[in-house]
């Protein structure tokens, strides 16, 4: 059996078993089965790591099936396990396993955990399709599949109408982006006659296709990425997606699915390297998202919303890296972000569990004595994302900043400011949740409890990864032969990426700025929320209110897009439905009724009349026949 088939098989099996038999299985069996299936995929993938590592050309391919053959244009289910996809697969299945394990305990009180695990396994399957597919078609297939799973899981507690609404919002926003992705794929088919990466990308790298074509394809594919990876202007679904259970937020809306857009751009590295306009667009969209996401995160009081805006902002960082052509750096940040953001979300879930399903940080505070493991791991996550020296986030963010510094100084300044905001809102969250005095009114601190081992083990593992994740790609000034990830990925690029080797003095300045930014965030938040003991609900200035209301993005979309569409719908309804359709049908039906009433007189129930009609008709036909003959 092909290893790729094996990797894909386990989550699908878990989905099938839990989906079909779920309600009949005992809760424990269903949840452990789901977890085990993802773990199996992880182990299988690890088993082939050596083979992939030995040589760049050593990728495993699998041509499963040909859907269609239209005049030589093949639509195939083909897969490849190469250096990029195995890296993504390890993140997906590895972090996936931890989050599944965590979910066993988190979903313990739910009525139907089997359904939850079925969806979660199906998500893993689709995500694997997305990264393992070796053509745009399979990628798109997985892309839609993860969108579906995201929808199902956001609306998992669908009894609450606002959760169902959030699920629909996520689905619709993603569809808008998918339209761009589809159009990009159509352009590729039209101009390259294939959807296989192995056909299209080398053709692009060899210079087939003008700048206009490459730029349009690049921008269209990026629109898809904007939807999936929650970039401005399509980002408002992600904070709402926090309606789903917290493990879902950790797995789908932080670690894996939302990074699909970054994966797509890295996969199409050859295309974007030759389309500088598209790259420039990615840079500025990413920059705006990083900055605005971080600003909004400053004034949110829902523990998950803060993390959601943080995710939006961090995804912006990754796109900035892509925009300046630092593809490896972007993947590095995807990896470290997957570690520390999954950690933070799971930590938030543990807090939510500990304080009995409360999410508002204004009723928390001082939880560190009651939840020591959660506190320490959350602290590590906060330090990592804020860029504490030598933790994973420090290296990846520093690499992005260094790359941007060499590209565009204005973008660098904005990004540094975003990093400063990141440190500020993260420490605000940490201090308000775990430090200071307890602010709860309808429950007491003694009710708060630490979570059990199934929840703390993933936290500890992820904390360790968040600390040491930086080792995956040490910067040039520490390791002169280049980081692990750079050496891993760079040979696979069709167009060589020139690594930036800054002067030692520049590096030192950049690192000092990064550390300064971290310290500022820490000290500012400490001053505000510990020394001054500011209450999160304290009255806000004008700007504070704007931030609290998320720059009125939702209101703006409502007024600028939803309302006009509703208005148009009303007009069309009164014009076409009421006037045209109803008018037409209601004017025709009296005629039909009249004719019917005439006709029913013929059918009076007396058999002799029927016989007379019959004989008369036959006589008529015969007579006509005679006449015409």
């Amino acid at each position, binding site marked *: 059996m092909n290893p790729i088939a094996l990797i894909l098989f386990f989550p699908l099996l878990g989905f099938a078993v839990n989906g079909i038999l779920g309600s009949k299985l005992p809760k424990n069996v269903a949840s452990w089965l789901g977890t085990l299936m993802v773990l199996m995929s992880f182990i299988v993938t690890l088993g082939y790591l050596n083979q992939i590592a030995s040589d760049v050309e050593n990728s495993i391919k699998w041509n499963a099936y040909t859907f269609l053959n239209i005049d030589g244009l093949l639509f195939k289910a083909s897969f490849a396990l190469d250096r990029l996809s195995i890296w993504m697969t390890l993140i997906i299945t590895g972090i996936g396993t931890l989050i599944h394990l965590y979910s066993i305990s988190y979903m313990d009180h739910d009525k139907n955990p089997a359904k939850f695990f079925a969806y979660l396994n199906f998500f893993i399957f689709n995500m694997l399709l997305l990264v393992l597919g070796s053509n745009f078609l399979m990628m798109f297939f997985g892309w839609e599949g993860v969108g579906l799973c995201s929808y199902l899981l956001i609306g998992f507690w669908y009894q609450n109408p606002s959760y169902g609404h959030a699920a629909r919002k996520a689905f619709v926003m993603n569809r808008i982006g998918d339209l761009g992705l589809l159009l990009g794929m159509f352009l590729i088919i039209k101009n390259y006659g294939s959807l296989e990466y192995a056909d299209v990308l080398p053709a692009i790298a060899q210079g087939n296709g003008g700048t206009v074509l490459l730029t349009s394809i690049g921008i269209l594919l990026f629109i898809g990425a904007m939807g999936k990876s929650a970039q401005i202007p399509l980002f408002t679904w992600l904070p709402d997606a926090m309606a789903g259970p917290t493990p879902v937020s950790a797995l789908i809306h932080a670690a894996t699915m939302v990074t699909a857009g970054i994966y797509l751009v890295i996969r199409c590295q050859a295309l974007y390297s030759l389309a500088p306009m598209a790259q420039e667009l990615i840079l500025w969209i990413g920059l705006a998202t990083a900055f605005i996401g971080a600003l909004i995160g400053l004034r949110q009081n829902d523990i998950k919303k803060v993390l959601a805006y943080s995710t939006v902002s961090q995804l912006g960082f990754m796109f900035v890296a892509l925009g300046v052509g630092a593809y490896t750096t972007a993947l590095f940040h995807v990896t470290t972000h997957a570690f520390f953001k999954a950690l933070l979300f799971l930590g938030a879930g543990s807090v939510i569990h500990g304080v009995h399903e409360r999410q508002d940080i204004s009723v928390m505070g001082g939880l560190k004595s009651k939840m020591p493991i959660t506190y320490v791991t959350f602290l590590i996550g906060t330090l990592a994302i804020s860029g504490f020296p030598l933790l994973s986030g420090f290296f990846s963010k520093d690499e992005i900043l260094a790359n941007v510094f060499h590209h565009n100084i204005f973008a660098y300044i904005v990004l540094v400011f975003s990093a400063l905001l990141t440190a500020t809102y993260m420490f605000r969250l940490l201090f308000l949740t775990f430090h200071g005095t307890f602010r709860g009114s309808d429950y007491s601190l003694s009710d708060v409890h630490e979570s059990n081992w199934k929840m703390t083990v993933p936290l500890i593992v992820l904390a360790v990864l968040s600390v040491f994740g930086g080792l995956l790609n040490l910067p040039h000034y520490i390791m002169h032969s280049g980081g692990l990830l750079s050496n891993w990925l760079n040979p696979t690029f069709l167009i060589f990426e020139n690594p930036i080797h800054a002067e030692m003095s520049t590096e030192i300045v950049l690192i000092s700025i990064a550390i300064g930014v971290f310290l500022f965030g820490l000290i500012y938040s400490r001053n505000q929320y510990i020394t001054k003991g500011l209450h999160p609900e304290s009255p806000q200035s004008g700007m504070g209110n704007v931030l609290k209301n998320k720059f009125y993005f939702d209101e703006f979309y409502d007024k600028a897009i939803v309302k006009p569409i509703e208005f148009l719908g009303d007009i069309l309804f009164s014009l076409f439905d009421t006037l045209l359709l109803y008018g037409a049908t209601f004017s025709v039906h009296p005629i039909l009724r009249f004719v019917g009433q005439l006709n029913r007189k013929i*059918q*009076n129930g007396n*058999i*002799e009349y029927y*016989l007379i009609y019959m004989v008369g008709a036959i006589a008529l036909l015969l007579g006509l026949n005679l006449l015409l003959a």
Partner: protein
Amino acid sequence: MLSIFHSLEISHYIYLSTVLFSIGLFGVLFRRNAIILLMCIELMLNAVNLLLAAFTEYMGDKQANGQMFVFFIMVVAAAEAAVGLAIIVMVYRNTRKTDVSFLDQLKDS
């Protein structure tokens, strides 16, 4: 060998069956007694039978295809009479009438 049928012209057979068929047809159209209706249908069928037998003979068809049809028609007529009479008996038991004009109860009044 000249068959006994040939002692008459074919036209005689045609006239006779036309008369029989017409009697049957008008009986079906204008009588209301269900039993008479059935009898008239038999009459029409037999008019056709007669014509088939005569034509077969005059066409000199050695395989007698037309006369085979006669047997089929007889079988069908017998079956139809059996079913029809059974229906009439049931109708009579329920309504004490054999008048077909009474059977318009399913009509939306």
